[in-house]
């Protein structure tokens, strides 16, 4: 641990806040990506059993 002197609080808190925000952003993005991926797979599976292959044309 480097000696941060009298500004330790400022330096540590800015690192903590920034890393916290970045981690939160990454975690939220990953969670939402997983959720949407799973939901889409489910909906697509439902569509297939219904006998529709046309969804491929969807852009």
């Amino acid at each position, binding site marked *: 641990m480097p000696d941060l002197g009298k500004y330790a609080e400022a330096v540590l808190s800015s690192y903590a806040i*920034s890393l916290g925000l970045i981690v939160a952003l990454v975690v939220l993005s990953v969670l939402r990506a997983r959720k949407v991926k799973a939901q889409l797979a489910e909906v697509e599976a439902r*569509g297939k059993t219904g006998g529709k292959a046309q969804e491929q044309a969807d852009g």
Partner: protein
Amino acid sequence: MSSIWEYANPKKFIATTDRLLPWVSALALGLMVLGLVWGFFFTPDDFRQGSTVKIIYIHVPSAMMAINAWAMMLVASLVWIVRRHHVSALAARAAAPIGAVMTVIALATGAIWGQPMWGTWWEWDPRLTSFLILFLFYLGYIALWSAIEDDDTAADLTSILCLVGSVFALLSRYAVNFWNQGLHQGASVLRAGALAGDTEERVSNVFATPLFISMAGFLMLFIALVFLRTQTEIRARRMRALLARERMQ
């Protein structure tokens, strides 16, 4: 044969980014850890600013990405308006929250840095003020996206807002400069603008190398997040389309 517009096909985009994503994420993580650990543990204190100089390894890259994210959204919006590729509009949508978070980080670290250096948390300094205005633009953009249900309408409206907003954001930047000359340049030796050109003169190399590594890391982080979030938006859009079709049947 392989033009860049091929990636406008959502399937192709997802396939390509799926392959790239692990590499970009690993690179982002590696560069950020390297830059930040180097900056935090292995650089000396500045003789005037003491250890607060270490905040620069977060403050400057996040500020850079806050502006670059908006620039990327502007380009993506233009592509959407001109060529009407859905991936482009969705990429702009995916980038907005990242840009907003970067703006918050830049503002928060700026305020924390300003406290010991300038003796105040918040100073209506032009640079800080224009970042606050940029943050408001991000909020408006995100709010407009989420307020409109129809995807194409939302893409059209937000891209026009992005264009108009860019002009006004620049205008505000100059207006704010005129309004208050500010502390940023005078009080802080390590000003962000100086890094691009006269780095040697302003920031000695001891600080510059980890800073550039950290900036590259933030850039990679941004790219990785945009890939991931654009994939999510594409899938969400496709799901909405499928659900709408189901309801019709």
